[in-house]
């Protein structure tokens, strides 16, 4: 039982990280109907840019390497780069493709994936870097002693951070003017346009926010597994999370991430040994697929009614 709980909690915590990546997808899909495959590349770009700045900033400014000032300066600069990247994407890539079929937009974002990966590695190099957020990756002693369950402080911190991010995004969407405009655009582009909401500003903001989410996801993933090219593959794990939760639902991304994270770890531990292991690579997809057969629009997706 304890082992089961440990695996379950470990899975849920890693699921939170999937949710973070999936969140970026959902934001953009909701607002502009673009299935942004480049979100994984953006996570990679963000993490690499942040690490790159922490490396070069001490030399440029004379600040102490590894200090708080460098950390926040690098964070701000990386955030600025992400916002610029997001807005440039919207302006240069997607604006000319307005009204094209969704598959064309999707292909454009795959092209963007190559472009962003190339730029990131071209500027900062392709070495694997460590990223230190100053949180130690040690088990929580209380849980270990009292209940004999191993929970990493780092995972818990990541989960809290993700929760905080989602909470603030929810507040932003619910109570600010921009958030309200965003929801209006997500609901109906034309109706939003007709009451005077500037569609293009909203899209720029969404891409900026998606860049911010990518940065947070990149920092946590980077600190967990090192900043390396493999980060882009996390985007692929976010896809079953999306279809499980529904493309258009922020809570869906969170719940989907938790389900995928937990079930993938449980399946690996309890089912994996019977079939030779390594089933983590495809289990989430098959799970999502089976789930879709029951609910084609995902857990929280909008039911789509076809009319001739």
């Amino acid at each position, binding site marked *: 039982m304890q082992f089961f709980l440990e695996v379950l909690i470990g899975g849920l915590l890693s699921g939170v990280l999937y949710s973070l990546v999936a969140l970026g997808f959902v934001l953009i899909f909701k607002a502009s109907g673009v*299935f942004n495959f480049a979100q994984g590349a953006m996570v990679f770009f963000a993490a690499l840019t942040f690490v790159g700045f922490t490396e070069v900033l001490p030399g440029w400014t004379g600040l102490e390497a590894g200090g708080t000032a460098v950390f926040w300066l690098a964070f701000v600069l990386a955030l600025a780069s992400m916002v610029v990247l997001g807005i440039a994407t919207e302006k240069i*890539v997607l604006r*000319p*493709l307005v009204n*094209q079929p*969704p*598959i*064309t937009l*999707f*292909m*454009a974002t*795959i*092209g*963007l*994936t*190559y*472009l*962003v*990966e*190339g*730029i990131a*590695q*071209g500027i900062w*190099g*392709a070495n694997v870097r460590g990223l230190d957020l100053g949180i130690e990756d040690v088990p929580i002693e209380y849980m270990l002693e009292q209940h004999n369950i191993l929970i990493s402080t780092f995972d818990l911190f990541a989960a809290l951070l993700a929760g905080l991010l989602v909470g603030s995004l929810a507040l932003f969407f619910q109570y600010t003017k921009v958030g309200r405009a965003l929801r209006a655009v997500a609901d109906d582009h034309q109706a939003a346009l007709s009451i005077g909401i500037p569609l293009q500003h909203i899209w720029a903001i969404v891409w900026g926010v998606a860049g911010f989410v990518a940065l947070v996801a990149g920092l946590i993933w980077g600190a967990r597994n090192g900043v390396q090219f493999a980060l882009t593959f996390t985007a*692929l794990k976010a*896809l*079953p999370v*999306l*279809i499980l939760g529904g*493309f258009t639902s922020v809570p869906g991304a969170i719940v989907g991430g938790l389900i995928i994270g937990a079930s993938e770890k449980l399946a690996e531990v309890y089912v994996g040994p019977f*079939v*030779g*292991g*390594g*089933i983590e*690579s*495809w289990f989430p*997809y*098959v799970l*999502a*697929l089976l789930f*879709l*057969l029951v609910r*084609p*629009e*995902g857990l929280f997706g909008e039911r789509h009614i*076809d*009319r*001739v």
Partner: protein
Amino acid sequence: MFYREAGQFKPSYEADQQIFPIIQDRVGIAIIIAFAALVVPMIASEYWLNSILVPVLIFSLAAIGLNILTGYAGQLSLGSAAFMAVGAFGAYNFMLRIDGMPFLVALVLGGLAAAAVGVVFGLPSLRIKGFYLAVATLAAQFFIVWALVKFPWFSNHSTSGVITAQDIVILGFAFDGPVAKYLLTLAIVIVLALMAKNLVRTSTGRSWMAVRDMDVAAEVIGIRPMRTKLIAFAVSSFYCGVAGGLYAFTYLGTVEPEGFNLDLSFRILFMIIIGGVGSIMGSFLGAAFIVLLPIFMNVMMHGLLGDYISASFGSNLELMIFGGLIIFFLIVEPHGLARLWQIGKEKLRLWPFPH
């Protein structure tokens, strides 16, 4: 300036129902085939045959397969490489385990195995659509590659699942040189491409297009969506499977499951987008473009920049240019090279007059 269709009257139904009803098209295709079969083997170097022409032909076949599914039947798929893998490993196993198995039969059986797998993974398409389906086909992509690695039976217990294709012998003639392999590939691709060209204008092909354009409406007018979609998955996977078999046997010689990764699926998807969705000719143009582009960029880079940049930066630059060009292409001509060819033909028809 250019040829016109006017004045070609058909006295019989047979004449009207040919694959290429216009005589100039027939002559043009015949000239292209004759050139590819007779002149190319004489003038092309071994490098061109092995590393450029054969892969272009094989990827054209895979692109036709995906085009049938995505371009004609409207079902987006990200798992084409996995079906290629089924075809490759299927053909290998049929050759290996059945004595005296003829190569062409093994190739077709490999394709049929891919078709069967394709139907299984096509079943969800009855319930889900669009990007949900695209992500669902990723299940096929990851599951098949995993299964081929995990169960050593498929690769005859070789280490890390690498298989070495057997020699190709047809009716006592060994296809071992680059010219022979090229001609074999060419023959298979021509036959299958003509079949595809024909298939998409039969009632099956028309029901695919009806389902693509609006499946509810198609169902209302009496097209059975389940049958139509599953046939599309089967035929598409068959084409991909045969392409995979050729990929193993006439192109690389040795393949491993990891070679048929998601990246390859994306490249095939790029081929049909760049070439033109819903066009057989576009599949060829797209395949040629995607195969030639990296080679061309590599040559250009070495020629222009030479020693000024490091190898790693060079590969990143290639990545950037590749991605940038894809985006550029989509913005400039979202309907692909086939559409450009069509526009060019219209223009030439009126030339030198503007209207």
